């Protein structure tokens, strides 16, 4: 299983993700970087060291110096690219995908994912096989800075960006589930930086995920039960790369990952209104919040390459997805679970409201997400067929098919990471949302 795209390459290790494939991609990235230094980091997956060695070798061979951060949350890798003035970065993580998967994500000098044009340039090098092979004297050099040189400064900057004094004064007791991912070794530094009484769970960075690394209610059972037992003001579930986060309220309710973004939007847009970027698949809640603060909302295709291209073009103050991924460009153009967590807590501290109350203030929609297996070779035909059944409605083809109606919207799109079609529907009425998804599922089944 292999997905090659403008944001990088993703695959199941062993069958498709082999050392030479990884090297070819890292070499393509090295050719793109033209001998500028690269920051490299990875999550805790068991096969991470294989991909790391393959990338280090290929990048050195391309004449790029490599700054290896070891196991490191992706948002910290992204900050560090700028701190060390590197030409780019490579994150070795499959984020929310399960443990069989791994991926390379290419990052630019600003820490953001390469935009589609830059990503295409890397792919062109890959397809051409036109790699830069440095002679012995011109090979890159490998360095491995200590955590104090980049993790410490990151949290210091984070604490300066949010209202750390308010958070500290509230003395929050919180639970963070690191999913044994890249954030695991750094939770105590995070807690110290903004003064939390933080109870970590699943914080052994051992490469075995205790549950699916996708932050969403069905993976929150452990956080919910710990929170019930010891009580806490909030629970936070991180993805394995610490890009995404979903929330558990003080009442031990596992909240949909869709809430993370609008909740933070209220905090940010209240202070600093401006354009907001999201994807076609994200809940309407963000439309209502943006509307309330009179901020324009721009929707793009799913994927950080598209989102952050729009962020730059629109000079957005906020970007996010319904998956629990939120970025505040004034801090950095990167989805960041640490920053998201701090901003949720900041809102709680400033308003004095409990998390359940803050969520209660958000407009409620019902969202139904399904995915169905569809061989890559059939996707084009299936989408074509579905377009007909969408007939008569105003179809947006920015990312798959998307149609709006009075109560909400429905979308069918191909997964960026698996041979799947994703069907998402949102409506004021739960029954209507469900019915719209079922109708499409039936239509797909008939076609496959």
């Amino acid at each position, binding site marked *: 299983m292999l997905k090659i795209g403008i944001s990088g390459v993703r695959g*199941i*290790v*062993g*069958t498709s993700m*082999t*050392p*030479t494939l*990884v*090297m*070819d991609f890292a*070499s393509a990235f090295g050719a793109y970087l033209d001998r500028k230094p690269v920051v490299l980091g990875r999550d805790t*997956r*068991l*096969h991470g*060291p*294989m*991909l790391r*060695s*393959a990338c*280090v*070798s*290929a990048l*050195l*061979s391309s004449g790029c110096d490599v700054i290896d951060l070891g196991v490191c949350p992706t948002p910290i890798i992204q900050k560090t690219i700028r701190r060390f003035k590197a030409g780019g970065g490579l994150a070795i993580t499959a984020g929310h995908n399960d*443990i*069989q*998967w*791994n991926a390379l994500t290419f990052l630019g000098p600003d820490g953001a994912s390469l935009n589609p044009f830059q990503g295409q340039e890397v792919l062109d090098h890959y397809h051409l096989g036109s790699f830069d*092979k*440095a*002679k*012995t*004297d*011109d*090979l*890159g050099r*490998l360095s491995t800075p200590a955590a104090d040189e980049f993790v410490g400064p990151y949290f210091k900057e984070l604490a300066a960006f949010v209202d750390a004094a308010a958070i500290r004064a509230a003395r929050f007791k919180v639970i963070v589930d690191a999913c044994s991912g890249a954030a695991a070794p750094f939770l105590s530094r995070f807690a110290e930086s903004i003064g939390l009484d933080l109870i970590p769970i699943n914080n052994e960075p051992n*490469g075995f995920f205790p549950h699916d690394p996708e932050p969403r209610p069905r993976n929150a059972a452990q956080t919910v039960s710990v929170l019930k037992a010891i009580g806490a003001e909030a629970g936070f579930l991180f993805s394995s790369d610490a890009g995404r986060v979903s929330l558990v309220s003080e009442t031990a309710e596992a909240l949909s990952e869709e809430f993370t973004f609008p909740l933070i939007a209220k905090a940010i847009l209240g202070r600093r209104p401006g354009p907001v970027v999201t994807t076609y698949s994200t809940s309407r809640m963000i439309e209502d919040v943006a509307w309330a603060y009179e901020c324009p909302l721009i929707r793009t295709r799913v994927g950080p390459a598209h989102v952050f291209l729009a962020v730059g073009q629109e000079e957005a103050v906020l970007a996010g997805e319904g998956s629990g991924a939120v970025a505040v460009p004034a801090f950095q153009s990167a989805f960041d679970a640490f920053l998201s967590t701090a901003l949720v807590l900041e809102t709680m501290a400033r308003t004095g409201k409990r998390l359940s109350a803050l969520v209660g203030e958000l407009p409620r929609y019902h969202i139904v997400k399904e995915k169905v297996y569809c061989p890559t070779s059939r996707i084009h035909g299936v989408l074509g067929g579905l377009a007909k059944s969408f007939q008569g409605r105003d179809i947006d083809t920015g990312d798959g098919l998307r149609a709006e109606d009075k109560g909400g919207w429905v979308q069918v799109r191909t997964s960026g990471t698996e041979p799947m079609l994703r069907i998402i529907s949102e409506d004021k009425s739960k029954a209507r949302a469900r019915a719209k998804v079922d109708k499409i599922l039936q239509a797909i089944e008939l076609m496959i």
Partner: protein
Amino acid sequence: MKKSATLKISISGARGIVGDSLTPQLAATLAQAFGTYVGGGPVLIGRDARASGIMLSEAVIAGLLAVGCRPIDVGILPIPSFLFLTKATKSAGGIAVTASHNPKPWNGLKFISRDGLYLTPQQTEEYLDIYHQGAFDFIPPEKYKSVQVLEDAGEAHLRRLLSRFDTAAVRRRKFRIALDCNNGAGAPLAPRFLRELGCEVIPLYCEPNGEFAHDPEPTAENIPDVCAAVKSARADIGFVQDADADRLAVVDEKGRPIGEELTLVLAARHVLNKTKGSVVCNLSSTRALDDIAAARGVKLFRTKIGEINVVEKLLSVKPKAVIGGEGNGGVIDPEIHPCRDSFAAMGLILEALAAHRGPVSSLVRSLPRYCLLKDRIEGSAERAHRLIALLKKRYEKAGTVNLLDGLKVEFPDHWIHVRPSNTEPIIRVLCEARTEAGARKVLEALKTEISACLKKI
């Protein structure tokens, strides 16, 4: 003229030019084949001091991980220490990133069996089959092993060396030694070894950075610096290691190279003085070895050129071999490990010197005297074979002919040896006689004869 290949994948491993033929992808693929061949398990990875070593080590580690091996990274290590450690750690095998004495742009991989020996030609064939078929045993994601980094990996070899020698006797002499590691793989360990033997070390080029200070072939013409250092520091002896620290050249207390041919002779005589047993060397090594073996009534066996050939013989002969090696400064002490080992050579020679109670020059004067000359003539392996067939006819009746590796002809007071090189398109021509004048005469006559023959081919 034909463009010569910058990549060689053969029984001596893989060698290529970095930035050209030797890519990360190639190194990882070779490592995948080797990892599949040894069937997983712990595999040692070490490297010589070349700047491209890290790049290739990482590629090898990635390849090994993907086929289920547990890589143990030992960093920069002399090749004898690496071979010793592969066996001592009971690893499934080892991959050494080294191009021994090749120029700086080159690097390579050498593949080592669980016994700590280079793969035999038979084993190499089996492993290369896997490489050529691309039949790699990639493991599923949940079976991945972790990488182990072994710090101070030379320690085990060092301890074994020190337990082998009469360290008390050597220490008492407080030798002053000029040591030239040529910034190679021996640099981290050799000064430490000599200091543990109570020696005062005058270090030359002891930074393991792969920046060769002189041509890495440790022949007399390449080592004037250490000769000068011996004189100016009034040292007792000078030692020069080659780039991967398997071979050793010796300089006497007057700053004169004794000739790399005599390294093995010095060591062998000393071993035979302590223990009786067979001697094994290759066809091109000096006749002085026959003399010292005969004087002690022990057998001497000669093999084809190539370290693995000497080692295989050394492990199989009866009576058991107690010393072996090559005339290029490679000494094999099977008590330590069956491989060429400049550390073993230094230990044995210092032990001999401690027992001798005189300077190196007088120790050397007491050896049988010969003059061995080496030369080369351009010519492909194909032409070399036709040449050898021609020469054989001419020499059959004149002397004792040996066709084990090229053509060697023995005469009562001299011998000649003509053979194709294993690594370059040249024909090697060697001869040895009692005196330099004698040897020169034989060599000139032989070269004239060869030139005449080659014109007819």
